[in-house]
């Protein structure tokens, strides 16, 4: 995983996001009930899906770290959790703006939103733990346990609507073909952006720890 992989990932992410934004603003139709603000959907929902993927990776690498105690797994878990947190924040920032326009309220204390806020707070605690503690081995182990426990909120967020219902989120979204195409391109673009950020963040973590050459990420 050298410099070249990172360059390729960033070029792909840049091109995909440029295409995606072009489709969102010049191709996707304006939704009749909500108007232009509905176009937030094309980054809001992919950000939620991509955050699930990265939080799952953080969970997986944390398990691997506790099992094998291999520092590379800890670096990968930390990077995945950090990128996942950025995408949780993206969802939490765009959602209320869309909600204020569509429902007239910035925030509603309903199960999906509340469980998602809990997710953000839990991973924020993970970073506070990382930032304000020293002693690599012990901190890494506690952080790994926290990342594993925190991940159990993801299925709760995902199933919140079918378990408890929702006054603002629909159970199912049906998209017109141009909207579906735009959504799929945006999903790929956001995923590539996440992959590029995660790659850069992992390499940075390894360089800071002086392990990049040993792990083949120099």
């Amino acid at each position, binding site marked *: 995983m050298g410099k070249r992989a990172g360059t390729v990932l960033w070029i792909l992410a840049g091109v995909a996001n440029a295409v995606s934004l072009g489709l969102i603003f010049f191709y996707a139709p*304006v*939704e*009749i*009930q*909500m*108007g*232009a*603000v509905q*176009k*937030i959907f094309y*980054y*809001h929902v992919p950000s939620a899906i991509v955050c699930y993927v990265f939080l799952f990776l953080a969970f997986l690498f944390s398990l691997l770290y506790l099992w094998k105690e291999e520092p590379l797994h800890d670096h990968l878990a930390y990077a995945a959790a950090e990128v996942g947190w*950025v995408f949780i*924040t*993206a969802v939490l*920032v*765009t959602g209320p*703006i*869309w909600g*204020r*326009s569509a429902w007239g309220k910035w925030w509603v204390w309903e199960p999906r939103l509340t469980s998602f806020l809990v997710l953000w707070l839990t991973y924020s605690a993970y970073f506070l733990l990382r930032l304000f503690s020293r002693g690599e081995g012990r901190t890494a182990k506690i952080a790994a346990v926290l990342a594993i426990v925190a991940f159990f909120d993801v299925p709760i967020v995902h199933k919140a609507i079918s378990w408890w219902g929702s006054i603002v989120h629909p159970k199912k979204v049906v998209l017109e073909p141009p909207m579906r195409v735009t959504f799929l391109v945006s999903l790929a673009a956001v995923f590539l*952006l996440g992959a590029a*950020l995660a790659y*850069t*963040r992992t390499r*940075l973590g390894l*360089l*800071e720890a002086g392990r990049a050459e040993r792990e083949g990420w120099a």
Partner: protein
Amino acid sequence: MRSLLGLLSVPVEAPPDTRAYLALGYGALALLFVGYGAFLWFRWRRLR
């Protein structure tokens, strides 16, 4: 001709103008990702 124009301009409910919220949403997203990018970049710089 008049009736044709009448047919073409069948009243369709116009979507509300919510472009300000759309701009706010994508502006906030841009700020978040540029901010995180800057955070990583400063860490790179400190390293070199």
